[in-house]
Structure formats: C-alpha cells, structure tokens
C-alpha cells in the first residue's frame, strides 16, 4: 500500500472511498484496481460498455459482491473488514436494481414497510405512514394495496425507490435503473431520481442515460474492461473528454 501514503487521507467529506479494489469471477477480471471517492451530496455517474464491470463495482460498495482485495470505506466504516456488521452498513445504503426485485408476495405498501419494521424496528403504524408519504412522493399514492405484478415497469421501479428511501439511507446506489423499462416509462423514473439529486442525496448511478448525467451528475466515471479509464466533472467530460476510448464511446452513444 505504498501509494496510499502519497495520496491524501480521506476526509470527513468523502462518504465512499474505494481504494485498489479488484474483483474477478473465475478467469474474468471484472474490476481491476479501482480507485474512487464520492463526496457527501454528490451524484456520481458511472458509464461504459456492457460487461465493463460497472455493476460489479457498484455492488462492491454495499458488499453484495465481495472484492478480492482492496479497501472500501462507506461513511467511515470499512465494509470489507470481517469485524464490520455489514447489515448495519447496508441499512444506510439504499439500492435500486435493474430488474426491480420487488417482493411479489407483498403489496406495494408491504414492500416498503417490511424492512422498516424488521430492520429499523419501527411500529407498523409509523412504517405505513412513512410508506404512504413515499408513495405520494413517487407519484403513486393510489397503488398502496396493489401487488407488484399489477404494476407497470416504471411503477415497479418507483416502488423500489420508495422501498430503499424508507430506510432513510445516506447513499443511494442505482444499478441500471431504467435499462429494463419501456421507453415511455423511463422519464417517470428519472424524474424521481432528479428530485432526489436536487434534495442533495448522495447517489452513485450506473446507467446509459446520458441525459440524466448532463442534468444531475456532478462527476462522471468511464469504466471499460474493468478499469476506470477516465474520471472528470460532468462539464469537462461532455466538453472535452481526455481519453480516446471515452471519446469513441461517447461518439457512439450521443
């Protein structure tokens, strides 16, 4: 770890610190030497070609994937430390999945209340009050008693966001939240995310929605073949990407 002596120590402002993280699946190296810090209140946008390790890196943050080596510190807690109770960290880090992963045996309301009751130990009444407020906020108060299978993709993803927000997370992770949606439903999900960004939520977003990045991201990270190729502010990256591979990728999708 000789490089960490040279690098500035993480300050209180850095809510996520990722240092020299490696992760491979068998022969496939998904993440190679990733270094990244996210500041409190920042929206960090990770993009790049499919299979480039974006999701794996994101999932390392709340330890859904266990890194092979490296350090990840979330809000001052080292998540890859064996002594850390990972459940306590995860309760502070909300996650939204590409395929929603709503609980099909529970209503929209039940999806949002279950972890509040079982993890946050809130009373049923309080959990339901919070859940209804959040359903209001994502624009679907009338769907409280509906089961996930009766919701559209966009509605499912908004319930999933409400479910994560109900835990009052300090950080929200988004793993391609709009990739499984029909085009006409993407906006309703992005609108909720934009609101969240405006309210100052710390967000790490893996996505192909460059429009969202332009509107809300503070910083952009380009990831290809497991490596972080370029990292810059949103203005810089759109105006003048330094790396050639970033330029090629942007020219393909913009």
């Amino acid at each position, binding site marked *: 770890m000789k490089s960490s002596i040279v690098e500035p120590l993480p300050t209180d402002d850095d809510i996520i610190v990722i240092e020299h993280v490696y992760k491979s699946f068998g022969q496939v190296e998904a993440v190679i030497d990733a270094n990244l810090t996210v500041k409190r209140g920042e929206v960090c946008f990770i993009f790049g070609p499919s299979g480039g390790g974006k999701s794996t890196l994101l999932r390392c943050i*709340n330890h*859904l994937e266990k890194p092979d080596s490296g350090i990840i510190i979330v809000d001052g807690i080292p998540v890859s430390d064996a002594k850390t109770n990972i*459940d*306590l960290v*995860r*309760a*502070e*880090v*909300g*996650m939204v*999945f590409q*395929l929603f*992963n*709503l*609980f*099909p*045996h529970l209503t929209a309301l039940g999806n949002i209340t*279950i*972890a509040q009751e*079982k*993890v*946050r130990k809130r009373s049923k009444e309080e959990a339901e009050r919070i859940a209804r407020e959040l359903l209001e906020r994502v624009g679907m108060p009338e769907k409280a008693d509906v*089961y996930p*299978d*009766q919701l559209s993709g966009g509605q499912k993803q908004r319930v*999933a966001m409400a*479910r*994560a927000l109900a*835990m009052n997370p300090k950080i929200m992770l988004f793993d391609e939240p709009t990739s499984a949606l029909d085009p006409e439903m993407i906006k309703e999900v992005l609108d909720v995310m934009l609101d969240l960004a405006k309210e100052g939520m710390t967000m790490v977003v893996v996505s192909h929605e460059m429009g969202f990045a332009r509107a809300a991201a503070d910083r952009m990270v380009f990831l290809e073949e497991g490596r972080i190729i370029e990292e810059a502010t949103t203005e810089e990256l759109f105006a003048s990407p330094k790396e050639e591979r970033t330029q090629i990728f942007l020219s393909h999708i913009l």
Partner: protein
Amino acid sequence: MAVTTKTEERESKLIPWTGRLADVPWWALIILLLGALIVYFFLISPTYQDALLFLRAGVRLTIGVSLISFFLALILGLVLGLGRVSNNVVFYTISSVYVEVVRGIPILVLLIYFAYVVTPLALQFLNWLGTTMSGSLAIGPLVGLADRLADLSIQDVEMTVRAIVGLAFAYAAFEAEVFRAGIQSIQRGQMEAARSLGMGYFQGMRYIILPQAIRRVLPPLGNDFIAMLKDSSLISVLAVRELTHLGKLNRARTFRTFETWNTVAFLYLVLTLSLSVFVKLIERRMAYEE
C-alpha cells in the same frame, strides 16, 4: 379476445357428438359410479357393515398418525432443507448426509430399524444418562428426572410412537428436498434486495424467501402428504392398530377376505381423494399472481 371466443363457440356446435363425448370427465363419473355401488353394498350387506364398524378405529388411527408424522416431517424437513442451501459447511454436510442416507433406504426397513434398533439404543442412552446424573450431579428437581430416566424401559415407548417418529424421520428427507427446490426456485435478486435493505440472512429467508418458496411447493407437499397417508399402512408390520392392521384382524376374525380388503381399499381411497380435494382448495387460497 372477444372475437376468438365467439368463433370457438360457433365452432363448438359444429363438433360432432363423438367429439363432445370426449370432453366429458369420464374418470370422475366412473369413480362416482363405483363409489355409489360400494355404498349400496354397504347398505344392504351386514358383512360390509360389520367390517366397517370394526375398521372405524383403524381409520381414526391412520389419520392421526399421518397428521402428526407429516407435521413433524415438515418441521424437520424445513430445517434440513435450510441446511441443504446453507453456506455453513457443517450444517450443509449434516443435512446432505441425512437426506442421501434416509432417501436410499426403503421406508419399511427404516420403520423396522427405528422401532427395534434406534429406540432401544436411545433408551439405553437415557438410562445411562439417568444413572450417571443420580450418581453425581443430581440436585433439587433434577433428582426426580434422573430417576425417571434411569427407570425407563422399552415397554414405556409405545409402538405407535415409534411408528410416528419413524415415518416422520423417513419423510423428512423427502420434504427437505422439496423445501430446497422451492428455496432455490426463488430468483437470487430477492435475497439481494432483502440484504440490501439491511436484513440478515435469516430475516431474508423468513420474511422474503420462505413465504414465496412455501407457496410454490404446496402442490408437492400435498402429494407427499397423500403418499405418507398411504405409506402409513406399512406401520401395520409394527402391529400398530391402524387401518391395514385392522384389515388383517378382520379377515382373520370373519374369514371374509373379499369384503374385508374391498372395504379397506375403499376407505383409503375415500381418505386420499378427500385429501387431494382439500389440498387443491388450500393451493387455490394461497395462490397469488406472480
């Protein structure tokens, strides 16, 4: 949709009567007819009525044994099933060895083994435990318990109890596999979502995975319950006075082989058919759209 339905309706009138005959549930009609015939025999024949009265207690015991054994098998099976999907090597290994060994032995052999080998061994152990306790560390209320254990004899364990335990242990292996399959059929994302919300592994199992898995495995569990009810006839070799054993006794008592086994078979059928209707009702109540 409405258009196709209309066409189908119109076409159905054009189907020849032979085609429409094929749609009648003949199997149900035949079963009903046979049932009616047998009930008729019961009503007119004193031999059948006598057999029925004699076998009544056996039906009660068969139902009781099956219910208790299956309940125990479900609990043990769930624990073993959780072991089969566990990352804990010890838990996984114990469960796997149990399932593989017990599944590979005929139930009849298992029942005899439990009744005549495991039970005496367990008793010897309890006797030894009682003697040791009263000799050394029996204090206060433990004295009574120690003496009780030391005085236990093999006659104290009824054959019915041994049969119930044997059946439960035998079927637990099958239920473990049913639960394992059900748990593994739930998408990985469900546990990930639960964990991402801060739930522990067991919370995720209890509140998210198992409620879905158990709904999914209700049909195979229902099948196994019916299979166990039938297999409970095997405990007649332990001289437990359930339906099949009472059938043997009735034949020996009356020499009416034909009527006796007709009645026994009919009673089993009534039990299993009503059970399968009951299982269907539960499945329909528990069903939800996925």
